[in-house]
């Protein structure tokens, strides 16, 4: 089965990448840009298992490795 983990910086954590991107976009003349935040997506290909097991399993992965909960939030999306 497939799953996607979305990782984004918590509010209040400054986002150097996002800031740099927004500067560049302004530099390129995209005036409409107010703010940019950059996040990560991690696509997992897993052996088949039921949704509950998957969710707990992936949550463990996030807690242990995929996300740094000091600065990041994460959300899990199961794609059948």
């Amino acid at each position, binding site marked *: 089965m497939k799953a996607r983990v979305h990782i984004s910086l918590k509010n209040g954590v400054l986002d150097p990448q996002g800031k740099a991107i927004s*500067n560049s976009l302004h530099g390129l003349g995209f005036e409409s840009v107010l703010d940019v935040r950059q996040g990560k997506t991690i696509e997992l290909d897993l052996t088949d298992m039921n949704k509950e097991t998957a969710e707990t399993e992936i949550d463990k992965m996030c807690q242990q490795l995929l996300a740094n909960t000091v600065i990041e939030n994460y959300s899990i999306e199961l794609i059948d």
Partner: protein
Amino acid sequence: MNEITKDIVAEHGLTEGEYEEVLSILGRTPNLTELGIFSVMWSEHCSYKSSKKWLKTLPTEAPWVICGPGENAGVIDIGDGQAVIFKMESHNHPSFIEPYQGAATGVGGIMRDVFTMGARPIANMNALRFGSADHPKTRHLLAGVVAGIGGYGNCMGVPTVGGETNFHSSYDGNILVNAMTVGVADTDNIFYSAAAGVGNPVVYVGSKTGRDGIHGATMASAEFDDDSDEKRPTVQVGDPFTEKLLLEACLELMATDAIVAIQDMGAAGLTSSSFEMADKGGVGIELNLDLVPVREEAMTPYEIMLSESQERMLMVLKPGREEESRKIFEKWELDFSVIGKVTDTGRMVLTMHGGTVADLPVAPLADAAPEYDRPWVKTETPPVLRAEDVDAPGDLGQVLLKIMGSSEIASRKWIWEQYDHMVMGDTIQRPGGDAAVVRIHNTDKALAITTDCTPRYCFADPKTGGAQAVAEVWRNLTATGAQPLAITDCLNFGNPERPDIMGQFVGCIEGMREACETLDFPVISGNVSLYNETNGQGIHPTPAIGGVGLLKDTSKMATLAFKDEGDLVLLLGTQTGDMGQSIYLREIEGREEGAPPIVNLSDERKNGDFLRQIIGLGIVTAAHDISDGGLAVALSEMALSGNMGAEITLSSKLPLHATLFAEDQGCYVITISPENCDDVLKKAKNADVSLQRIGTIGHNELNIAGALTISIDMLRQEHANWMPNLMASQSRK
């Protein structure tokens, strides 16, 4: 099995004549896999078919040369059982298409060339050429290339200690990214690529094989056109982390005696590595492609043989040593697979899914590679521009400031600060000097390393330009006190099928040859990159030269920084004042004209040997050669580096603007403490070299009598800010 049509042959970059040759070698039509193998083996990139004839004329021998061109890299002896192994290689086309990954994989490739021979890389260099600074693509390409070189080298933990960077419109459509790696090995533990020992296992190690860069090798030999963006999918992605593991694993295995032969998989991946190993050893090889570790589903034999996935090596092991070797690579979490064996058939036999997918004779394919004597015409030598032919400017101070802040002269700090140039703890002369100096770990010996080439000279007069490139390398090494030992080259040119371009190539080689001979400076490795041309516009001929010199005692190293207030400034060498092709002419008069400065190789030798001798005596407090921008720029660079000014009085009969800005060759500016002056002048007389006092250092401004007075701070602003300002303005891809 696809049948081979004219179109398929053409797509594979083989001429009809070459395809005839294929048919007569095989005595039958090749299948697609075999055709692919021929096409990469016979591509310009792998076969050197246009350049071979001329490369043979370069001097490659000296008592200290252990291994010249032909192996993965050249090897020289530096005494105490130690050898230096180095090479420079181009990754031009890939870097133009995807600057970050193109440059990164170029660095990865050249490092593999060096550690595959048993050396631990201790320094990286990079020689870069971009389009004019205001070309819309330049900033994007420069930013990406520098980030890519840093991204790979920094992760490997090998310091990037120097290089060179030029900007010129002739590179607008074809940038040049030439990377050089220098490594150190024990003379009794150097590894070569000749396969041997019938029955010995052939082993694949490193990353898995994917569909990366298929036809990269043929692409790297194809002229660009506007739709070259279509060639994009052939770009590979580098994995420096895996290469770092591969480096450590290889060196660990090399500490045992399990390896018979080893060869990295570079351009044309498994094909060229296996053929080169078999050909060099005069043996055959049998490979079972089912055993090649692959990253993707359903890869065909064609794809497996032509893939340019990075971070892979091919080895021949002694029989029975597989398991201990496997353990090492598995410890480093790398793939290790015995994929075949050495045979005595002289044929390359590839099997997959139980069938034979290719069966080719090794020698004919490798040796019968086409070799062309391309027609060429000599470049017209332009007229010499004397000082009188160039108007004197109103304000020499403004001129100097403008030149210090020009694209060719301005500081490259913005670049080298993105490279870890200190890791490994032996960088004793950082970027910013004439050559970088890197200590041989745990010794008092060091290597001086530089890369140089002045393409505008080569374009105006290929022979003089070729000689000048070699001479400037020799000079930059000498200026640190090092004994120049050998060079590697990276010959970047346009389309060799055009006689004028071929003439540039022939001329540069001729000049290089003369310089190498006079300076005892053999070529031990190199690389040729042709077809650097877009819509018929070729690049300036660019024979980038990388040189290495030996400093026997690190305490005797010279740097360019002014040091002690009151030291005397001396000019070593004679000035002609010729202004052709000078930065002055280009920046102030907007002209790129005339003959380049004369390169007098015997004076070059005499002056350099004299300087090295007095540096060795410990009486030189600073040394810097005169190059781009002339004497005034050399003095400014020494002042900036030492954050100290100087009072200069010039007694030359030449007009001031010529004395200050002519790019006379074979000249150096040095400083010594006053009490040594008479002695040094006497030594110069005896050595029959021209040495004259031109001033004294001190205070915080550069004062040149009758010409200019500028504060160090103003000089620094112009020099330091140009590149940061350029890169601060946003560029689009």
